[in-house]
Each structure stands twice: as structure tokens, then as C-alpha cells.
């Protein structure tokens, strides 16, 4: 039986409603995380008035879930004015922050405004590891203090534990810390390219063997297949012609601090700018969004018949950054390989290409 949330999502998809919008208020940040995909300079962020107008427009388009993120959202002095306006428009407001700047007074205000939840980036329980990633001395201590203040107000908090070389063995401790503070916990072991397309940061990704061990840790994902289990098999052909790859551009949109609209924060395909056009018009008329929406699994070369088809969470944004909106995301192929030990069709193909391109010994 479908849950109410899924029913709402299905209805939004059928009606073309942008159910969720992720709005980055700034790319400025008080931390300089080694894996961050952003340029932290301010190249002309939207003003308070512009953001409030965008929120009006987004609410009018039917958006229910609004995620405010950055950069670090508390770098904006008008943050509370923005949240208050969003709550007046009865959005479900979710925040993403490093919590370093959260004082008791700010936590009290967030509670009073009815913020739904706060996701906090936490890399390690060890200050030397966490602070080495954020490049902000004392940041772990300040983040933990900020989270305590949020929890004292009864605000829901979840730790987002991005794993990379340097902190990949710490997730168990971070999970225990989350548990002890009454916070949620999730891991993300995928470092993605920078917004400008730069891929050097991918070198921070943990190696294949470690990734495999991580995906086979059943305490993290009880539904993970047993090691050596057969892949889930391809998607049925009749379904492949209908399936949309993910919600990006279908029921989800991302708006940058400069007003640019994208299908998702991880999908750098510009679809318009709310400084020139109303969000609702971009959502409805953008040729780029129409292109994103036109892709079905059956169109993706190699994926529609791949043995991992039924379990793969191919990210169209990653596929786009890898060069082809209608192609595979090799990072997701590697994930499927890490889980099952069976290479996908596209991973095999890439290996052959690399082998063919290798210089003769």
C-alpha cells in the first residue's frame, strides 16, 4: 500500500508540480571543506527582496518542501526574515547548515518559526579529522554545541556524514554520536564534481574496496543484498519506457543564490533565471527542463537492459556532468559494482575503452 507521502509525490508528478525546491541562499561559507563543489565568492547574490519574491512565486507554483542551504545559510544576516516569510507561506522548511554559528537565541528563533528539520554536516567524531576537512579550527566543537542548542529546543536534527579519504572509518562513531544526541544520521560516500565541472575533487573518493565494505555494512542499510547476491536484474521493458530517472526537473528544482534554476543541486544544467523570468514560467516553459523530462530509462544506452537496472539509482545529474544527459552515470555503476561485485554493462564498456586506450607495455 502506498503511503500518503508517495501518493502526494505521484500526484505532483502527474500534475507537473515542483513539490520540492532547494534554494541556496549563498555560496559564502565560514568553512572551506576540501571536497566542496562550490565557489565561495559572492558574484551577486539575490537581495532579500528578490528572495522573498521568489518564495512567493515558488509557493504559487505549488511547492510544499523548501530546503534552504548554501554555502552557510547563517552567513546571511536576513536569514530569519527569509525563514519567517517562508513559514508565512506555509512551506515545510528544512535547513542545511554546519551549525557553527547557531547560538541559543538563534535556536530559540528557529523553533518559534516552526522549522521542520535541520541537516548538519558532520565529518568525524575526531576534531583533528573533522577540522582538517572543514579547514576551520575548532569547528567540530562549535558544530556539536550548535546541535545541542537545536536539540534543547526540540528541533529535529540529522547528521549528514560525507565520507572521503581521511574520515571513511569514522562513521560508526558519528552514528553513535548522533544517537546519543537524539539526531538522525546518514552517510554519503560519493564526492561529486565541482559546479564548474572540475573533477579533481573526485580524487577524495574512497577506494573501491572500502566502498564495497561500506555498502555491505548491513548496519547502515539492512536491505543491502548479501555479499555475492545476484544483481536485481534489468527493469521490465514495458516499465523502462515509462520510468523517469529521478525527481530532478519533474517534481524537484534547485535555485542558486544568483537566481539560476536547475533541475537539482547536483544537475548543473541551467534552465533559466528567476531574475529574468518568474519561476513558474521557467518550470513550465524551459526547453532544458522539457529535455530533462523527456528522458526515460529506455532511452539510456546500456542502462535499460543492465543487470542492475531494477536496483540502480542512476543520477541524471551525474550523467550530465559525465557528458551525456541520456548516458549512464559511471559513479552509480561503480556503486552497483561495490554492492554486488558484478560490473554493469556501461562499466564493462568503459573498462574496455580504458584498456584499448592504454599504451602498449
Amino acid at each position: 500500500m502506498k503511503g500518503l507521502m508517495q501518493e502526494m509525490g505521484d500526484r505532483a508528478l502527474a500534475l507537473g508540480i515542483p513539490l520540492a525546491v532547494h534554494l541556496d541562499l549563498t555560496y559564502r561559507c565560514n568553512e572551506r571543506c576540501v571536497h566542496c563543489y562550490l565557489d565561495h565568492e559572492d558574484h551577486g547574490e539575490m537581495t532579500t527582496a528578490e528572495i522573498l519574491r521568489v518564495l512567493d512565486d515558488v509557493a504559487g507554483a505549488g511547492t510544499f518542501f523548501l530546503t534552504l542551504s548554501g554555502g552557510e545559510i547563517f552567513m546571511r544576516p536576513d536569514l530569519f526574515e527569509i525563514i519567517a516569510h517562508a513559514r508565512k507561506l506555509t512551506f515545510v522548511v528544512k535547513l542545511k547548515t554546519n551549525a557553527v554559528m547557531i547560538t541559543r537565541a538563534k535556536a530559540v528563533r528557529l523553533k518559534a518559526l516552526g522549522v521542520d528539520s535541520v541537516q548538519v554536516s558532520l565529518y568525524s567524531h575526531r576534531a583533528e579529522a573533522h577540522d582538517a576537512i572543514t579547514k576551520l579550527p575548532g569547528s567540530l566543537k562549535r558544530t556539536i554545541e550548535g546541535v545541542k542548542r537545536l536539540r534543547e529546543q526540540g528541533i529535529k536534527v540529522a547528521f549528514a556524514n560525507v565520507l572521503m579519504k581521511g574520515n571513511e572509518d569514522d562513521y560508526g562513531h558519528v552514528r553513535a554520536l548522533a544517537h546519543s544526541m537524539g539526531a538522525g544520521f546518514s552517510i554519503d560516500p560519493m564526492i561529486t564534481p565541482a559546479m564548474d565541472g572540475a573533477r579533481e575533487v573526485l580524487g577524495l573518493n574512497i577506494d573501491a574496496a572500502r566502498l564495497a565494505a561500506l555498502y555491505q555494512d548491513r548496519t547502515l542499510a539492512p536491505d543491502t543484498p548479501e555479499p555475492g547476491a545476484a544483481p536485481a536484474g534489468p527493469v521490465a521493458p514495458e516499465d523502462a519506457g515509462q520510468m523517469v530517472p529521478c525527481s530532478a526537473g519533474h517534481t524537484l528544482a534547485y535555485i542558486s543564490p544568483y537566481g539560476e534554476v536547475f533541475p537539482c543541486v547536483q544537475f548543473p544544467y541551467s534552465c533559466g533565471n528567476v531574475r529574468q523570468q518568474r519561476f513558474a514560467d521557467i518550470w513550465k516553459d524551459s526547453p532544458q527542463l522539457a529535455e530533462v523530462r523527456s528522458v526515460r530509462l529506455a532511452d539510456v544506452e546500456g542502462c535499460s537492459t543492465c543487470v542492475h537496472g531494477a536496483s540502480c539509482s542512476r543520477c541524471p545529474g551525474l550523467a550530465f556532468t559525465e557528458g551525456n544527459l541520456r548516458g549512464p552515470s559511471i559513479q552509480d555503476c561503480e556503486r552497483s559494482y561495490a554492492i554486488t561485485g558484478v560490473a554493469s554493462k556501461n562499466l564493462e564498456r568503459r573498462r574496455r575503452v580504458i584498456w584499448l586506450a592504454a599504451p602498449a607495455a
Partner: protein
Amino acid sequence: MGSPVNRYIARSPDVAARRIGGELMIMSGRDSSLFSLNETAAALWDAADGTTPLAGIVEREICPRFDVEPAEALADAEALASELASHGILVFSEAPIPR
């Protein structure tokens, strides 16, 4: 409990709400539970301004729309509003609720 005639309802400031394809979805600020309000509940929600007595809302919004007797409609509205209040969606008061 006072007479429903003299009771007031207001939309809880803690919830989030949106109409998705004509259906009113409410997320509780208490525990993020999601609710879908039926047409009668949605009519109560829309009219819950904190200053109109429940009896007035029933007379003005419910009876004409749903073709029910005022006494029966008021009793049903009272029960429905109580249930919504128990989930933190509406606020009930014996006096007008200032916004």
C-alpha cells in the same frame, strides 16, 4: 468543555500546508506527520481564522456547501475540529484567538 457555539478555531502556526492538485496536505509541526484533509476538514481549515465562532463557520461555510442540518453539522464539526486539534493542526479556544 464549553458550548461549540462559543468556541473558536484557528490554523495552528506550527504546521505546513499546501494544496496539491486540489487536495489539502498538512504537515504537523509536532512530529512531521502528513495529513490529507477531506473536503469538510479543508473547509474548516480555510475558515479557521480564530475570530469567527465555530457555529458561525458551520452556518456560513459548511451547511450551504454540504446540505446538512445546522445542529448535526455543528456536532460533526466539533468532533472533526477536536480531532484536528489533537494532531496540532487546529487550535481550539473558548475565546477569539488573536493572530
